[in-house]
């Protein structure tokens, strides 16, 4: 079973820096972490490899410093890593990102299964998985909670979609986005850390991917941010006054009033 896991590096905190001209997020690689949602996809991939044999590749598009996170993924059980890194990829929206990822995955060779996190905590779009599947012309399922059975040809999975649990068969190759909390992502082992340091790592630029640069990065992104703003609200909030005890009394009275 050849499995590819897509990983995104995200800022570890909610503090943001914006490029004043392009209004895109500035990423300098400091204090970046693997998108927490992706860690469940990685764990799922490693468990499948342990069960069935095969190979887990991790792929990311990002700045060169993303190598650290990919090596971390290999210390947890992935076998090899590819980083798509080029100035031409900068400023990509989901369409341009998924296009570049599709080229990188094709470069990796044949695959049976692609796993992604359900979404990234910084963008929240949840669009990369389905868009990537479309570029690769394979079926996709979002928010998969459990892999019940898997063969070389197809797999049976359970997904949660709008409060319904669907039990489904999907033909391979396929792309799944993995629900949060379905497993306990493992920590690196000591031998894993040693492996991660020397493990096969490849960095590919747009030329190596034979990418159509008009479909990459800012130029290849249909959407653009035109402005950012701090939301304004004009709601008048009435504050309770007095000592804490008095305020709580007033609060209790107000709750009773509301519940009448």
């Amino acid at each position, binding site marked *: 079973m050849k499995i590819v896991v897509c990983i995104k590096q995200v800022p570890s*905190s*909610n*503090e*943001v820096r914006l490029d004043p001209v392009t209004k895109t997020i500035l990423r300098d690689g400091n204090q970046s972490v693997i998108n*927490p949602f992706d860690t469940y996809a990685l764990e799922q991939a490693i468990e499948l490899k342990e069960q069935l044999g095969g190979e887990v590749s991790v792929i990311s598009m990002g700045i060169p410093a993303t190598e650290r996170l990919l090596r971390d993924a290999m210390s947890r059980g992935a076998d090899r890593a590819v980083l798509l890194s080029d100035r031409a990829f900068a400023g990509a929206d*989901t*369409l341009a990102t998924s296009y570049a990822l599709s080229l990188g995955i094709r470069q990796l*060779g*044949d695959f049976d299964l692609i796993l992604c996190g359900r*979404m990234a*905590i*910084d*963008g*929240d*779009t*949840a*669009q990369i*998985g*389905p*868009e*990537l599947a*479309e570029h690769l*012309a394979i*079926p996709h399922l979002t*928010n998969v909670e459990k892999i019940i059975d898997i063969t070389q040809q197809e797999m*049976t999975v359970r997904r949660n979609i*709008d*409060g*319904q*649990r*669907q*039990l489904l*068969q999907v033909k391979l*190759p*396929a792309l799944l986005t993995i629900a949060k*909390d379905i497993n306990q992502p493992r920590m690196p082992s000591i031998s894993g850390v040693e492996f991660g340091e020397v493990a096969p790592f490849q960095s590919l630029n747009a030329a190596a991917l034979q990418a159509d640069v008009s479909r990459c990065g800012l130029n290849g*992104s*249909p*959407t*653009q*941010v*035109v*402005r*950012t*703003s*701090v*939301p304004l*609200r004009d*709601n008048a*909030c*009435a*504050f309770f006054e007095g000592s*804490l005890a008095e305020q*709580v*009394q007033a*609060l209790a009275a*107000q*709750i009773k009033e*509301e*519940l009448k």
Partner: protein
Amino acid sequence: MTGLIIDRENCIGCGLCCKSCAVGALTLQNRKAVLGEGCTLCGICLQSCPKNALSIVKEDKAVFDLEDYKDIWVVCERNEQGELLPVSFELLGKAAELAKIRGCRLGAVLAGNADTESQAKQLIAAGADLVYLCEDKMFAERLEPPFYRLICDLIKQYQPEVVLFGATDFGRSVAPRVAARRRTGLTADCTVLEIDPITGLLQQTRPAFGGNLLATIICPNHRPQMATVRPGILAMPVLDFNRSGEVIACSVPQGLVQTLHLLQTEPAAVSTSIAEAEIIVVAGRGIGNAKNMKLIYELAELLGAAVGVSRPLVDAGWAEYRHQVGQTGFTVAPKLMLSFGVSGAIQHLAGISRSERIIAVNNDPQAPIFEISHYGLIADCVEVLKELIVALKNES
């Protein structure tokens, strides 16, 4: 695009085209034909393909004309029972306003296996001028492929300027597939939509950058402009059954290869839906530690309320995702919300803005939660929780 086009969905990876090519420009990768260097557009491979997956496309225009794209569409959605989802009506209400500003028509796309004609009347009553209707048993199950294939076909044929989807799990799975196939932009989870009456440019505003800012996004050179909007964010329109509209019967997508097979559907085991609760007690990071969650549960029990939390608590593992209130969790609309120690990131506020009454407790008077609250109490929320529980117990 000019050149040899490979329909990768129809390609079965048989390799016959690769063998047919005189210059070796076609190879198989990942069980699909891929075009490399050297193609002379001789056309011999077209004949070799048993699935007609190859075509040579010549296009006169280098850049397509944005003027060709007209009208605003809402892709409507039905649940397992075949009932229309409220979010479809919410979107139609908003889209009708946009269509009026733009001076264009409002189209609704509806696919289902039964009852679609009576539902088309409801969509017209909600503001649709046109209903693109496709009734077929292939739409009986909530599986994405026939839906995104149909929507792509319709977009290609009718060329709408804007296409809106409900940001349900299903909508968020279908819409990106359509966007990638049509190679256009898609903005997830918009909270505000505005349109320029002259250019038709859709300004799509959504929370971004960890919820500290709102980003307004446009899609200037690609059509259609696509966006998803969460259920419960937009107001429900008043239905007017005197409105008239046209129903256009559409043909089903052709050449669909079945890749998904539904074995069984059941309601998710946990269905304590905070989305429908009338009273909600919400905890935020200000409660300090996981232990204090029991105070939240105690208060909720006293009031017969559901328990919600802000996202950091779910991320920290103090509560399960099903309790998460906000745009990436559940959008709620209770009669009364009591909020403890929530500062109020934009996504959270977007998810609670339709609450009838919000009472917030936070020790920071500048916390954004107070901007949306009706009553506020500036104090340590754990202290308030403890005293409030005592006070409520004494009264009962």
